[in-house]
């Protein structure tokens, strides 16, 4: 219970910070809409629905990347991570709290992005929505872990995309597969497996990211 209380306190703090600063969510929302508008005009008329489905995943991954780039800005700019790391709570609670906050931001932005995709391209099916939900968990689990690593680096702007994008390839494969392949349920299973494996790895090893 104490662990969950720590996670809740940390996630609540991030939501409160975003509510006050309003820096990340508006930027992510604007980005996803802008990306979908660009894709709408970039895709030749008469292109297949399958191609549009792929572009949805490009928009989701890069929107998530934008949010992840800001995930640890408050901790980095004001050295607050030192205070959090010294606290007696399990350090994985920092990862989980931050990951839940990022997941909340991404899900909120998708509430705008998916209807926008339906307007510009075509309707979104139940399997695509399930795929997006599962992909969000994996993206936030891995992305928060990598964002913490990048925050400790001088070349954080380079490190985050260089580490995150290769790790997000399975998410794109699973997401696109779930969206377009007939009988794509096995891709949903693949995404769930990815989520479970990477969440466990990140949870178990986050301590080594924030300590020497």
């Amino acid at each position, binding site marked *: 219970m104490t662990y969950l209380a*720590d996670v809740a306190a940390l996630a609540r*703090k991030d939501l409160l910070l975003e509510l*006050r600063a309003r820096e990340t969510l508006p930027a992510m929302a604007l980005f996803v809409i802008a990306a979908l508008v660009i894709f709408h005009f970039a895709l030749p008329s008469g292109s297949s629905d399958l191609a549009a489905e792929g572009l949805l995943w490009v928009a989701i991954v890069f929107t998530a990347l934008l949010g992840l780039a800001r995930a640890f800005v*408050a901790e980095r700019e004001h*050295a*607050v991570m*030192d205070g959090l*790391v010294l*606290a007696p709570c399990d350090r994985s609670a920092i990862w989980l709290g931050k990951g839940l906050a990022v997941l909340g931001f991404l899900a909120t932005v998708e509430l705008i992005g998916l209807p926008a995709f339906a307007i510009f391209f075509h309707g979104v099916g139940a399997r695509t929505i399930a795929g997006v939900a599962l992909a969000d968990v994996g993206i936030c689990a891995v992305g928060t872990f990598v964002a913490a690593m990048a925050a400790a680096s001088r070349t954080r702007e380079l490190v985050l995309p260089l580490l995150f994008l290769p790790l997000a390839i399975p998410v794109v494969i699973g997401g696109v597969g779930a969206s377009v392949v007939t009988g794509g349920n096995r891709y949903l299973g693949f995404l769930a497996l990815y989520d479970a494996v990477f969440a466990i790895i990140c949870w178990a090893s986050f301590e080594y990211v924030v300590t020497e």
Partner: protein
Amino acid sequence: MIRARGVGRSYGRKQVLRGVDLDLPAGGFLLVTGPNGSGKTTFLRLLAGLQVPTAGSLEVDIERGRIGFLSHAPLVYPQLTAVENLDLYGRLYRVSERRERIGMLLERFGLWDARNDRAAAYSRGMLQRLALCRALLHEPDLLVLDEPYSGLDEAGATLVDRELLERRATVVCATHDPGRVERLATARLAFA
């Protein structure tokens, strides 16, 4: 309580700390002095467990959550109020009777009237007072203070004096104003 033998710390090829030996019993007061760049802050970070030595051995016989650390940065979120910042730390540090303790510290450090202001609106001195509240919130057994008088006016500095005088914790204090705490010191460490 604290035992250091030949402690050193390097960043790549640059050695910022070398051959530090120290024995500080529980309840002691270590005064750390030295010019800028002599390794004081690095040594304090090693004591707090935020970094590890690259040479020698360092034993700090204190649990992680029982250390109060005051650094150059106040370690607070500017967009949160003083109460929200302290409440977050209070939860993470398992402070019992959190609200009462937060209220008492804010009163003592003269921040009660500004308790619901965001830390971003605080002056340098007020931030230092808030940082002191944060470091003392969980009544630590080891207090690691890096320039505790930095940014404080005389009234604020007197509050720190009083806090150190009434202390029960072991204290390690690095300062450029050693005269203020000289009489409290039971051990000294001068970096060159």
